[in-house]
Structures are given as structure tokens and as C-alpha cells.
């Protein structure tokens, strides 16, 4: 009688455990399906295997999610991704979609000023103007004036051999240098007037039509 009763009780306990475990499995599957319906997968790869990858969202902390590559599951939404390594940097905004995999590749490069500035323009041969009478300060001001003319320009080229100093008349406070070149491939003619070591006044004209494109001076307080 005793052994049968013990086996019976044991069987009852295991059956109860099976019922509880079954209920637990159903709940777990249901809960996981809910999570899967609210989240998506984000796969990040970078151009540097040691790059530290970070992620943040509006009104949240940033968090490190991996090195070199990372695959994570996140709530659907908009995220800021960044990767850094050895002075190289990449950043992007990405959108994670429910139940889908979003793939992002971050190509790291040297950080540049994100805002448009004269520093982002490629000036070819402009330093030749230093050999023709301008100071480095004046050339820096000249670059700023080119940028003021067109903030989106990528390349300014000064045609080699085009720089000429016009004859200076006694009593005239201004010296004048002219040169030709191209701005993003479009030809221009430039006239630079200056009186001392800092000021420059730049006038740009379209080389083909002769139409004046821009005139400006730095420092702006110069008469």
C-alpha cells in the first residue's frame, strides 16, 4: 500500500508541475510574441573592427552596444547611432521598424566641422596669392569671402599663371590683384583689392558673361 501511495503522490505532484509549466510556456510565448510585435532588429557594421558603437534616442541616455559590429533588438523608433575609433568618427540617424531587420553601415572618417564653413572647401592653388603680395591673414579672409558668396561650394580653383598684380598708382591706397579660376567647375574672374596686411575686398565676375557675381570685404569695418 505504502509504495503505491508514494508513487501516486509523486505522479500527482509531477502532473501539477506539468500543468504549471504548460501555463508558464503559454504565457512566455504570448509575452515574447508581444515583445516581438513591438521591436525590430538593428544590425550595425562599421569600417573599423575596433570602433565603439553607441546608440541613443530622444530623452534617453546613450549606451555602448558593441565593438566593430553589433546586432540588437530595440523598440521601433528613431535612434542616433555613432561609432568612434582612433580619432575617426561616424554618425547617422536610423529608424527601427517593428518585426523587421534594419541594416546600417557606418564608415568612419576624420571628423570635420559638420556646419558648412570655409574649412570644408577645397581651395586649389590659392596660397599662390601669398607669393603675389597677400599675407596669410588676407588669404584666410579671402577664403571666408568665397564661402560667404556660396556656402555650398566644394572646390575653388585658382588657375596657375593667372595671378596678376595691376600697376599701382601713387596716391591710390589700394593695391589690386586679379586672377581667374573655377568654382565647382564654373569659370570666374576675381579682383582682390587691399590696402595693408589684413583687409581684402573681393569681386567675382562670371568669366563668360562678365556679370558680377559677388562683392564683399573683410574685415567688414574697413572703408
Amino acid at each position: 500500500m505504502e509504495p503505491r501511495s508514494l508513487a501516486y503522490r509523486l505522479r500527482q505532484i509531477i502532473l501539477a508541475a506539468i500543468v504549471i509549466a504548460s501555463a508558464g510556456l503559454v504565457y512566455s510565448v504570448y509575452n515574447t510574441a508581444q515583445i516581438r510585435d513591438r521591436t525590430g532588429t538593428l544590425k550595425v557594421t562599421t569600417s573599423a573592427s575596433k570602433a565603439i558603437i553607441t546608440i541613443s534616442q530622444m530623452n534617453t541616455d546613450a549606451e555602448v552596444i558593441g565593438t566593430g559590429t553589433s546586432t540588437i533588438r530595440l523598440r521601433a523608433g528613431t535612434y542616433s547611432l555613432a561609432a568612434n575609433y582612433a580619432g575617426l568618427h561616424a554618425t547617422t540617424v536610423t529608424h527601427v521598424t517593428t518585426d523587421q531587420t534594419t541594416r546600417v553601415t557606418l564608415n568612419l572618417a576624420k571628423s570635420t566641422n559638420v556646419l558648412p564653413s570655409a574649412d570644408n572647401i577645397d581651395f586649389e592653388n590659392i596660397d599662390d596669392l601669398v607669393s603675389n603680395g597677400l599675407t596669410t591673414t588676407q588669404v584666410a579672409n579671402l577664403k571666408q569671402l568665397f564661402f560667404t558668396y556660396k556656402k555650398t561650394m566644394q572646390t575653388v580653383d585658382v588657375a596657375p599663371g593667372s595671378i596678376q598684380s595691376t600697376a599701382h598708382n601713387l596716391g591710390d591706397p589700394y593695391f589690386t590683384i586679379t586672377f581667374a579660376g573655377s568654382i565647382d567647375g564654373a569659370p570666374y574672374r576675381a579682383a582682390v583689392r587691399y590696402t595693408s596686411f589684413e583687409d581684402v575686398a573681393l569681386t567675382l565676375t562670371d568669366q563668360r558673361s562678365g556679370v558680377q557675381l559677388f562683392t564683399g570685404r573683410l574685415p567688414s569695418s574697413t572703408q
Partner: protein
Amino acid sequence: MEAGRTNRSLVTLNVILVVLIVAILLVPRIMLGGLKPITLKTAPALTGQISQALAAKTDRATLPAAGKDYSLGSTRYFDNDIWAVATIASIDNNGLSGAVVLKKAGGIYKVVLGPGTSFPSNYTAGLPSDLKQYLNEQGYIYGTP
């Protein structure tokens, strides 16, 4: 014989129980592709993006954290909240201080300038005039032409 049958039935029930326990552990992982969802901690506005920008500037393996490596000061918004200027102050003299300029794009802010205590005027040429004026008044711009 009856004892044998009882034993077999107990073993079967045990196997079923073990299978269920393993299923509870494994099925959710399989459903989520082996990935546990990450939840980012709530924090004051802009701190996440500022921390990411600081990590780029300092090139550290650890992420500078608000309240631990720097504290967030005032935040001002410009142009219908498209632009923002936040000030940060370093904790433990780690050099993380100054102003940070952010621009909203794609629904999230991105650091476009700083952090820094002094910006050359040509770096601010692309900013809205009221924002530039604010930075100038706060002493963050030098070399104004």
C-alpha cells in the same frame, strides 16, 4: 509488473516536465532570434546625443555620462526647436565643458558644433542669426569679422 508500469509512467511524466522547462527557456530566445531587447534609460533631453558627441571628441572607450562625467546646464531652443544650444560643465576637471550646438534632423537632434568654450566665427556662419547672437553674447565666438 505494476511497479514497472508505474515507474515507466513516472519517467515519462518527468521527461515531459523537463521538456516543458527547457521549452520555457529556449522558445522565447528562438522567437527573438537570440537577442534580448535593449531598453535605453530615460534621461534629460539631449544628454544621449551630447554623450555620443563627447565620446567622439575624447576618443574614450567608455561613454561620458551626464551626472557622472559632466553636468547639463541650460538648454535654449531656436527656430521652432530645430536648433538647440546646451551648456555642459565638467565633473572632476575632465575638460568636458562649454557649449554644444545641436540641430534636429530626421526626428532626432545631432551635435553640429562643440562642445567647446570658444568657436572661430567662420565655424558659425551656417547658424541662424539669433543663435549666433546668443553664442556671441555668451562669449563663445571669437574672431568676428
